[in-house]
């Protein structure tokens, strides 16, 4: 293949991170281009149309649908209060009137002389979008939101759960191969983003959620524990909206896998800094990876690698991570990219590469089973 694109996760010490902060439906943008914002600053606001109530007024009053307009007290667009009549019959000589009260506060939306139904819309729900990261508004998307730019450290994970949060980075293990167990979680971590090594136990995660740890960044986690956390087997990797107290970001995958040394060192060097974390993951159709953004505006002037490359081809010297058995999780560098297809133990004929691991050993692997560590 002339250009062997290999997907990879981005780990950048200093880079420009741009986040489009969009409303789900059109609304009002509060931020202006050039504004300096903190992560919790509201940049756009809108109102989600309220829930809808369908009431079969014709049937409640025992009338044919076409007679509905003659009994309606409220017109399309009128506000209504809960319990207030929306329709009433004339009765006999003003007596024995039947009424249909509104089941909720809201607005009359429409009525149908075909179905006899009246649609009431409950009050709208306000929705606000915050900046998520400390940075500068570099673009305004009229009616939709704003683009916030931050300068700093950016680490992509492979999988996560839980939504957007902020907190101070705190490394709680001695090395990237260490496990986070219950003993490493204490009350001082409340509101912080704890960085671990190769794995977090179920007990430790539970304790972190009880204490109110904002986020955990760790190499691996076990699938049965994810099942306990979500209360179900996760079928498709679309996450981010879980109602959990602590956002969890895995940098390597499922199982006990040491965090890549460079990632661990980078996060360690940022200890004490404020970071934004998001566990949202979507593997297909517009991929979204979980992430940690650590703004470092004070380093902006000295940064030479601020606009690092993104994606690309494998070449000898490329640093890779193995992402499938039998060397899953190991890091190494590419030494050769033979052109010919090779037969694996499974008898599959695939394109391969030769890799040298950190301990000096070498292996031949399918190109599909490695990912580049992008910087």
């Amino acid at each position, binding site marked *: *293949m*002339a*250009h062997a*694109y290999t*997907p990879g996760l981005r780990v950048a010490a200093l880079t420009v991170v741009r986040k489009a902060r*969009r409303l*789900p*439906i*059109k609304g009002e943008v509060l931020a202006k281009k050039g504004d300096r914002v903190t992560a919790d600053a509201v940049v756009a606001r809108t109102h989600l*149309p309220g*829930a*809808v109530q*369908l009431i079969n007024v014709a049937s409640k009053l025992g009338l044919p649908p076409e007679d509905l307009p003659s009994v309606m007290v409220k017109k399309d667009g009128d506000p209504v209060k809960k319990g207030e009549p929306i329709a009433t019959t004339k009765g006999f000589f003003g007596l024995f009137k039947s009424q249909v009260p509104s089941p909720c506060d809201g607005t009359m*939306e*429409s009525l*149908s002389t*075909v*179905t006899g*139904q009246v*649609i009431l819309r409950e009050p709208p729900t306000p929705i606000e979008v915050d900046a998520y990261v400390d940075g500068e508004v570099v673009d305004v998307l009229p009616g*939709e939101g704003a683009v916030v730019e931050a300068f700093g450290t950016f680490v992509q994970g*492979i*999988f996560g759960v839980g939504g957007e949060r902020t907190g101070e980075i705190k490394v709680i293990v001695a090395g990237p191969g260490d496990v986070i167990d219950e003993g490493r979680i204490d009350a001082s971590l409340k509101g912080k983003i704890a960085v671990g090594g190769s794995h977090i136990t179920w007990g430790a995660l539970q304790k972190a959620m009880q204490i109110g740890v904002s986020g955990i960044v760790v190499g691996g986690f*076990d*699938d*049965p524990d*994810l099942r306990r956390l979500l209360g*179900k*087997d*996760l*079928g*498709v*990797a679309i996450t981010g909206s879980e109602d959990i107290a602590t956002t969890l970001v895995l940098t390597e*995958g*499922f*199982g006990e896998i040491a965090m890549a040394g460079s990632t661990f060192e980078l996060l360690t060097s940022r200890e004490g800094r404020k970071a934004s974390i998001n566990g949202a*993951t979507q*593997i*297909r*159709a*517009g*991929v979204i990876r979980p992430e940690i953004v650590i703004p470092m505006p004070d380093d902006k002037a000295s940064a030479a690698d601020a606009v690092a490359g*993104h*994606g690309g081809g494998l070449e000898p010297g490329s640093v890779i991570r193995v*992402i*499938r*058995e*039998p060397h*899953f999780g190991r890091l190494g560098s590419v030494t050769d990219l033979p052109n010919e297809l090779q037969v*694996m*133990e*499974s*008898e*599959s*004929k695939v394109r391969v590469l030769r890799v040298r691991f950190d301990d000096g050993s070498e292996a031949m*692997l*399918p190109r*599909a*089973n490695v*990912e580049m560590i992008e910087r």
Partner: protein
Amino acid sequence: MGTLENIRAIVATDCGSTTTKAILIKLVDGEYRLIVRGEAPTTVEAPFEDVTRGVLNAIREVEELSGHTVLDGESIVHPNDGGDRGVDIYLSTSSAGGGLQMMVAGVVKSMTAESAERAALGAGAIVMDVLASNDGRLPHQQIERIRHLRPDMILLSGGIDGGTVTHVVELGQIISAADPRPRLGLGFKLPVIYAGNKDARPEVAKLLEQKTSLFQVENLRPVLERENLGPAREKIHDLFMEHVMAQAPGYDRLMEWTDAPIMPTPGAVGSIIETIAKRQNIEVVGVDIGGATTDVFSVFENTFNRTVSANLGMSYSVSNVLAETGVDNVMRWVPFRLPELEVRNRIKNKMIRPTTVPQTLEDLKVEQAIAREALRLAFEQHKSFAVSLKGVQQERTISDAFNQSASGGTLVNMMDLDLLVGSGGVLSHAPRRQQAAMMLIDGFMPEGVTRLAVDSIFMMPQLGVLAEVHEKAATEVFEKDCLIHLGTLVAPVGATQEGKSCLRIEGTLPGGRTIADDVPFGEMRVIPLAAGESASVKLTPSRGFDVGAGPGRVVEATLTGGVVGLMLDTRGRPFKLPSDEHQRVEKLVKWSRAFNAYPEI
């Protein structure tokens, strides 16, 4: 594109959810043949977010492997120069970006709503949900569902022409109240197709014209006894091209390159399966097991059915197979011990890194175990969907008096099935064809006498779209280069104790060899019979077993061979695996050895 007679070179691509495949077809000695195939990761996602990057990479691999020049920089060279430069036709199918995702609505769940579902599936869509007046949900729950799912389009049906308008207008009110937003494009109106009672058109227009992009077509069930799915399907295709594709990254450019509209992948494969059934006048089941979905196609009693099982697949959706079937059902096909934690973590790692391939034999076996369950689940869904029209009154004779079957029974009759065709990465790229045969047998459990075949290199989608513009080329390549005949399977229906008599096979093989074999219950065997060869055999099932003519009745047939051979499966139907782990593993190993499915390590 020149005239059909002058077509010398064709390139077709399929942009799958995981990989983009390209094939080069050329006219060689007066017939169309596959020359080479290329593959590259699909690039609909970040960092490229442009599907054409993956297409160019796959085509470049074709160029490198064939020496035929297709590209000049980043454009396709048209036309072919009579030699090794340029192509006359370029076509593409796509299921990248999640394919076409729809919601359908109809008045009665088992009638118009089901017809609407059939129309959407027939157009190659994933049906995210089916709304019906009688689906048991309250209106606000239906509204929430529409808002939450954000489909690419909605198909609204309901009522026969001249029938009641009230219920279909109620559904229109629900869609209108939901004020639905499309998945792609914030400032763009969601396409809604109305294909219901024609008398309700003005009311539906009043409700939906302002809030959605409304299109009205002929009723898809104008009378109770007849479906008219064509107009709705065509409109879905048009809107898929105009709205959904146009919004996906890079498709506007790809659409400019192709010589015919881009087809949804399931639509293209279905078209090929339907063609096989029509040409040979046989009953066919086809399956395409992909990364995100598994699509099943069948033609029984001249009725074509297609189901797209969203979220049953081997990469992005592999974890959903586990969630749907449970870890025990996956593990029952694994011929060695593996802790549950290990299985679960491996499957999740495949889900989050979907493009990896099994390097070890152990990993391959686990992956093929999951494939068996994905195939089985997708086929179960298909069987429950491929039914005759429901709600139709049937005239019954006195002989039917004791037959209580209602209308709407499944059309899928495994005993009548003539040909089972498998396609998709895990089947087409299995290192040994025997593995594909075993996955098909275990996933579908064919009964009686059934021919098995597999798509050689996973190119049925491209041939499906090619059949739309050049049927001769598509047919020639399909018959000569695409369809690999695995052989014929004989599987008696019935059950008895292990080792007891089940089937006797007698006959003459090519070259005068004879066979006379008694196969006890619980075995898998293979008799060598190459592709192109056939054998006249007499199949005598033991008492209580059926190979097609009824319990204990003899069947005399001419069976065709294939790359695997004549396959005998006396494991019984319904099939049961031993519950004891030791016995189960022993059996799985024995059956794989009989098929020579895996290398001995």
